[in-house]
């Protein structure tokens, strides 16, 4: 599973990308966030406030309940501010 981080999430976590193999039972974006919070203090801080985080699964916007699977590209980022 490829994880991508953007904007202040990238800065807090200290990298723009990481490959992980989540433990069994991680079925949704929400499950994945809970798992990521256990990886490091930086991850814990970055993911502390769910309301400030948005996700995309395979380059489509996805809610917290979206299903995820091995091989997916999951991106986390703040609400967008382009335009």
């Amino acid at each position, binding site marked *: 599973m490829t994880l*991508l981080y*953007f*904007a*202040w999430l990238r800065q807090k976590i200290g990298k723009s990308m990481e490959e992980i193999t989540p433990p069994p039972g991680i079925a949704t974006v929400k499950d994945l966030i809970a798992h990521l919070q256990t990886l490091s203090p930086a991850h814990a801080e970055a993911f502390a406030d769910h309301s400030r985080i948005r996700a*995309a699964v395979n*380059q*489509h*916007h996805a809610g917290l309940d979206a299903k995820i699977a091995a091989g997916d590209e999951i*991106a986390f*980022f*703040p*609400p*967008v*501010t*382009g*335009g």
Partner: protein
Amino acid sequence: MKTRIRIQPEEFDMNAEIAALTESGDAGAVASFTGHVRKEGDLSTLTLEHYPHMTEAEIERLVRQAGSRWPLTGVTVIHRIGSLPPGARIVLVAVASEHRQAAFQACEFLMDFLKTHAPFWKEEDRGGKKHWVEHHAGDDDAARRWKK
């Protein structure tokens, strides 16, 4: 519908972009929008980050939606990335149609969804202090009105 989506650091040429949308001669109306970096007190640069590939894919989805709602002959979306000084142009959305109402509505629709769906993030540098621009809740309301 002729679609042209570009994510680039470079400035764009509005004359050339509008000409490209109308060269086939089937569009009498082009509605355009440009977004600009405002000159504000100590703002020295605005830096735009994006999610390569998803940005293009998401904008393509939005353009397809616009094309299914209105009779459009062409859509051009150019969004700049990287560091931009105050006064710089950030984005161009230009929509060509036979009908000006369709062009105006589709252009506004695309801007509203670009603001809420296209994965770009702005970081401001104010006198050496950097901070990420907060998402504007009013933009969600603007996008929501198209659901009806």
